[in-house]
């Protein structure tokens, strides 16, 4: 490192923090009650929809049911909305369940197609539902991750056709972000597949959120302060642009 670089580094700002705060992501052993419930329903052979905020542990439900299905020698399909995510899941599951147990089928990649656990894009699963349902005789479950993609203008169709035409012996586990009409989705699936669908709703976040707003001066405000600030700021700005047409960019200098 040259002297000049050293100087440059020293004058850079550093955040207030302690040097070592490594937290390794702990895999929770104990299940929350909503996870417990979902797994129980699935073990009873029900279809299940889970609506829960991100980070509450929907993935854990998926992993547990995969474990159970693999243990009895049945097949299971995991579908994800984006290719990059499918690749990622394939890698994760390979570590968890062993590379020989996992296959990956997206439009442009196809690995270990005969594995019991198949990671697919939803489009591929949809195609199988039309073209080769007989290839899915041994498959007992399909997991739809990010089920709320049903509402996607371009791609929702793949989810709908999958749900409507998945062979009847395949049970569905749908994982969704928080949506207000998850029960409606369940009763639709129940009607179109002529099977009961259980619903699990987890409202509270594992970690609650706190929304804040940051002003042009860098001050942190809460919601009502932010609303007041914006009203006042907009009025002030309107006033100023009317009275000082000629001052151009003088506004930012005066603002301080």
């Amino acid at each position, binding site marked *: 490192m040259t002297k000049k670089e050293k100087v440059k580094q020293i004058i850079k700002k550093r*955040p207030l923090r302690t040097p070592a705060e490594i*937290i390794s992501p702990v895999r929770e052993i104990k299940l929350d009650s909503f996870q417990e419930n979902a797994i129980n329903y699935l073990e009873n052979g029900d279809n299940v929809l889970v609506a829960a905020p*991100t980070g509450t542990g929907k993935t854990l439900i998926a992993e547990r049911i995969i474990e159970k299905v693999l243990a009895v020698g049945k097949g299971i399909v995991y579908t994800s909305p984006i290719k990059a995510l499918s690749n990622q899941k394939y890698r994760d599951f390979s570590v968890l369940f062993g590379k020989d147990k996992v296959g990956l089928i997206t439009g442009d990649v196809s690995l270990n197609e005969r594995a019991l656990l198949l990671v697919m894009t939803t489009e591929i699963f949809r195609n199988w539902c039309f*073209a080769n349902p007989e290839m899915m005789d041994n498959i007992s479950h399909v997991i739809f991750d990010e089920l709320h993609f049903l509402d996607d203008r371009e791609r929702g*169709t793949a989810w709908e056709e999958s749900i*409507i035409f998945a062979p009847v012996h395949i049970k569905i586990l749908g994982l969704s*972000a928080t949506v207000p009409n998850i029960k409606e989705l369940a009763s639709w699936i129940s009607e179109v597949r002529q099977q009961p669908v259980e619903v699990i709703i987890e409202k509270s976040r594992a970690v609650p959120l706190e929304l804040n707003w940051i002003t042009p001066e*860098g001050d*942190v405000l809460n919601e009502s302060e932010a609303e007041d600030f*914006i009203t006042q700021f907009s009025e002030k700005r309107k006033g100023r642009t009317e009275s000082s047409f000629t001052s151009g960019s003088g506004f930012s200098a005066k603002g301080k």
Partner: protein
Amino acid sequence: MALLSNSPSCSQIIDSIQEHLPALYFTFSRGKTELLAEELSIEWDFLLPHEKKQVNSIISQAELLQPGLFGSRRQRLKEIITQGIAYHHAGLPPALKDLVERLYENRLIFVLFCTETFAVGVNFPAAATIFDSCRKWDGREFRGLINREFFQMAGRAGRRGFDPVGMVYLRIDKRFPEQTGFYNESLVEPVRGRLTISPNTVLSLLYWKTDNEINRLLDQNLAVYQNNKEGRRIRLELIEIKEALSGIGSVFCDQLDTAYCYMFRSNLKKEFRSLSRKNQRLRIGTKERKEEIRNLLKRPQKKCHHRPCSEAKRKINELTEKKLRLERRIRTLGNHSRDYERDFNGVWDLLENLSYVDGRELSARGIFALHLHVQEILVTEMVFNGLIRDGQPALVAAILAGVDFVPGRDDYVVPCPHDLREVETLCRSLIRSGMPETMCVWSSLPGALASAWYQGCTFEELQAMTNFQEGDIFSVIRREIDLLRQIERAAGKDIELVSQIEHIRLKLDRDEIAVPGI
């Protein structure tokens, strides 16, 4: 480089929230993630010496696996990563995205500037999420984020078992304070059915499904289900309104709407006053009507408590208005459920006109298109008129790269070395024969890239041919590989075609374009 004259600047924001790092800083433009990362790196350095060493060793390992990982274009990223700052968007080459994700998971990145895709799927939690703005281009228009989108992203804040709360920060932009977003998790939008009927759907239904199953898709899809449900609710409401209306009527006496009734008289008085206005006075018939009203009002008014009657009248008007609104809504819903049948029949007719089907029987073209999932008619036509089968492989690679490609305004690629006019002619003639333009989407623009990559050029050479970012070049070729695999499946026992296509695919699926890590 030019600094963003943003206020508050990202450096200011980090200053205010520095107790809540690591942070994901969301913006809705790739360019902006890069500019902001650059800007922050001028003032900030988050890593301690031993962490810098860690970063450097992770980088050298990755470079060992993929030499030239950062290329010429991402040297700055390599520098700022050692300060604990990075950016992540779809334009990055996948191997670099992986590297950034790995560093983030190892807690070596303190501020990550990223786009929406970072919040889909894999959970990368942070202490805080920051929104540079809450408006995005959704392919059609600039619009504010809806609650569902916002909380999908914001919810990345708060690491389980570590942060008591997840901090979310929304920037109030000095220039557009009125565009500041306000969100409420209890107002997250419901999921609506979005089924659309594509040629592939119709072919698949006709070939593989029974009439009953076809009807199930058309009559029981989510949109129809939701419409029916709403329809049932409205019908119940209409019955209630009807009952309420007939109940209210009993208040009136039999002199309602006669000159003895208070309400009728006050209406007459109102009319009289309006007829006396200047603009009415000279109209034909005004004089006579005024005389008539005067005579009617000469009659005595019934002595009664008119208040209940006025109340009832007001209520009736209100309910009638609501009834009309609901009846209109019922009609729209009815039209919608017929839409699916109409769409299905429309596409079926089109397929019949193009000789893909005859009734429920699929022709050779129809069977071929059954295996295609993007621009299925256009690609089938390319194959059946010989463009794909007889073309030189490099030319075929160029043609197929353009399928379903919509060039952006500023996209640039060197001109294609092949003559692609035949494809343009094909598209034009299909559109003339009644194909909707959305089923004929093709562009010559990416052709040169696919052709050069087929012929074995390096990724650096590809980059020199275009202003596409690495990730975009990657996805153009990966999408073509996807399409080639579909065509191989469609070709089935046509060994010549299969080997032509497979040959091209294997030439394309190599080096930087191969999917990393699997």
